[in-house]
């Protein structure tokens, strides 16, 4: 963590001069919505047995997907990883659809075909997670190649964790993107664990960013719990990619404030880390900054949270009313037009 020193106060949102208040409110809303939806999923619906299978959430890491995702336009293609639910909200997916997805209902983004975060929608320019860690990286490289080929100014933005960087696909994807000089922005959430495996057992270098020079790629390390810092870094990376200067890697230092998945108590995590990182909670920090800078009042902020809670209550009701898929549709859509 040498290269960043997370502080309780946020870095000024350089570059976004002028519209800070509006931007901050959008970021706060998006992070808080992600937090609330995932709390309901992990701590209520999963425990009530209403969600079956794996549940992976991004508690404490919301600043990364929200800060970076807010730095691109609706035409740019997003490749989320499993702790980036916020990206879906930024693209207009509703909590209803997300709850329905987690409950395996037809109202979910994959209509029950796949579960939890394994969803995507090309119309919303958001590609489904590939469960194999880092497999999305070469795919995102190819999409970025496509944008360059077609002469658009669009970029691809791919998200992954520290553990994913050990996969061959990560290497092949970064190398190919650098050689082809395609508009690809790489966002690493280094939350210092891959499931139970600490980053020291994942790599022998200090930072994921230390690998960028080996690909002839620029990189920077940013406080992943500082949404405005992530946002600014992402804007720099996106600008770089759009200008045709090739891929750009951002390593966001953060911490996973929960187990790997809902069934993991994370007893392997040294106790003191929880408190240490709780103090760096990205939502609280933005909240404080907004109050300090008088971008919003206590009431406004509480109003945002209240609205989100209500939105979630309503969305869960809707999702529970959404039917399970009809077994008769089981074999549909394996191929174009196949039943």
């Amino acid at each position, binding site marked *: 963590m040498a290269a960043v020193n997370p502080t309780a106060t946020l870095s000024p949102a350089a570059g976004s001069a002028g519209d800070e208040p509006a931007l901050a409110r959008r970021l706060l809303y998006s992070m808080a919505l992600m937090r609330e939806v995932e709390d309901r999923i992990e701590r209520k619906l999963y425990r009530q047995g209403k969600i*079956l*299978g*794996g549940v992976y959430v991004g508690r404490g890491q919301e600043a990364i997907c929200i800060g970076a995702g807010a730095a691109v336009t609706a035409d740019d293609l997003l490749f989320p990883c499993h702790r980036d639910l916020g990206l879906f909200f930024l693209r207009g997916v509703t909590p209803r659809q997300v709850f329905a997805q987690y409950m*395996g*209902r037809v109202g979910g983004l*994959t209509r*029950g*075909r*796949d*579960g*939890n975060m*394994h969803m995507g929608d090309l119309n919303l320019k958001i590609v489904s997670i590939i*469960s*194999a*860690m*880092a497999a999305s990286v070469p795919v995102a490289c190819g999409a970025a190649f496509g944008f360059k080929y077609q002469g658009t100014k669009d970029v691809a933005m791919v998200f992954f964790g520290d*553990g*994913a960087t*050990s*996969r*061959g*696909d990560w290497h092949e994807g970064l190398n190919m993107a650098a050689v082809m000089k395609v508009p690809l922005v790489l966002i690493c959430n280094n939350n210092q664990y*891959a*499931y*139970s*495996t600490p980053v020291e*057992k*994942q*790599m022998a270098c200090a930072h994921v960013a230390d690998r960028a020079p080996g690909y002839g790629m620029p990189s920077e390390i940013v406080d992943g719990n500082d949404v405005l810092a992530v946002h600014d870094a992402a804007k720099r990376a996106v600008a770089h990619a759009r200008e045709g200067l090739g891929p750009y890697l951002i390593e966001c230092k953060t911490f996973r404030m929960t187990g790997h998945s809902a069934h993991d108590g994370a007893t*392997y995590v040294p106790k003191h880390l929880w408190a240490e990182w709780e103090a760096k909670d990205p939502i609280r920090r933005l909240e404080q900054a907004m109050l300090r800078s008088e971008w919003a009042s206590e009431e406004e902020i509480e109003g945002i949270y209240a609205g989100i809670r209500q939105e979630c209550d309503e969305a869960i009701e809707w999702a529970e009313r959404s039917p*399970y*898929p*009809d*077994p008769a*549709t*089981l*074999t549909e859509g*394996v191929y174009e037009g196949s039943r």
Partner: protein
Amino acid sequence: MAEISYLEAIRQGIWEEMERDPNVFLMGEDIGIYGGAFKITAGMLEHFGEKRVVDTPISESAIVGAAIGASFTGLRPVAEMQFADFITCGFDQIVNFAAKCRYRWGAAAPIVVRAPSGGGIHGGPYHSQNPEAWFVHTPGLKVIAPATPSDAKGLIKAAIRDNDPCIFFEHKALYRKIKEDVPEGDYTVPIGKARVFREGRDLSVITYGAMVHAAAEAAVTLAAEGIEIEIVDLRTLLPLDEEAILASVRKTSKAVVLHEATLTGGIGGEIVARITEKAFDALDAPVVRMAAPDTPVPYSPTLEEAFLPNARTIAEKARRLALY
């Protein structure tokens, strides 16, 4: 004899081999302090130490490759894929190197790759697959898929002692669901030998893994109707125990070949082909296959239930064949 689960049986088998042979070691993701995604290696780090229970980076290809390399130095690596679905990431090392070493240049590659596979746990397309057929089509590998705790323990021990590369498929849905008394003390179950799981005169159900138990459930229903099915549990898929398959079919004259993996290109075709080639005249009816439909494994309960063969659908199929 203590009743233990399928999971505990595999754990005991590995534990005993670790005690028996200091060259046996484990490598995989989160198998150390966490004890593995399914807790198969729980307690092993504490007992055997970091040297022999090695947490790796997320690198399936290097896990398999390193296991092969370690085996060249006299070690007996047992590598865990966190889910069988990700064995595709180490595919080249398994099918192009491990499988071909002995034939190409006379080198043994005594590795075991453990792969938790199968559906019925709401895992969806990426945590439910049954990829065994790919490996059955790869000469040089041994492919194992136990259905019971006794076999799981005896076969994991046999695989660790075997001098050829073994792919060991553990069915996740059986881990905690299936319990039984296992033999006392040190024993192995021979690789390449099937067993008759249930005797019956009317027709043979040739299957393995979780489907053995689904078939057994169907057998109860059918027995009540006076139909006695014989269940052959293959236990090993490569090499296939052709004799056992043919013996059962010659006895019953009818066969259902059943697997949870998707139908087309599955191992079922191989078995049907061997039966028709070698016991054609013994057949009173066409050998029929039963398997999951040709789709990815769906997540939603209603879809997954329709996807997986179960006691009811197996009974229907068997009933129809019995009356053929």
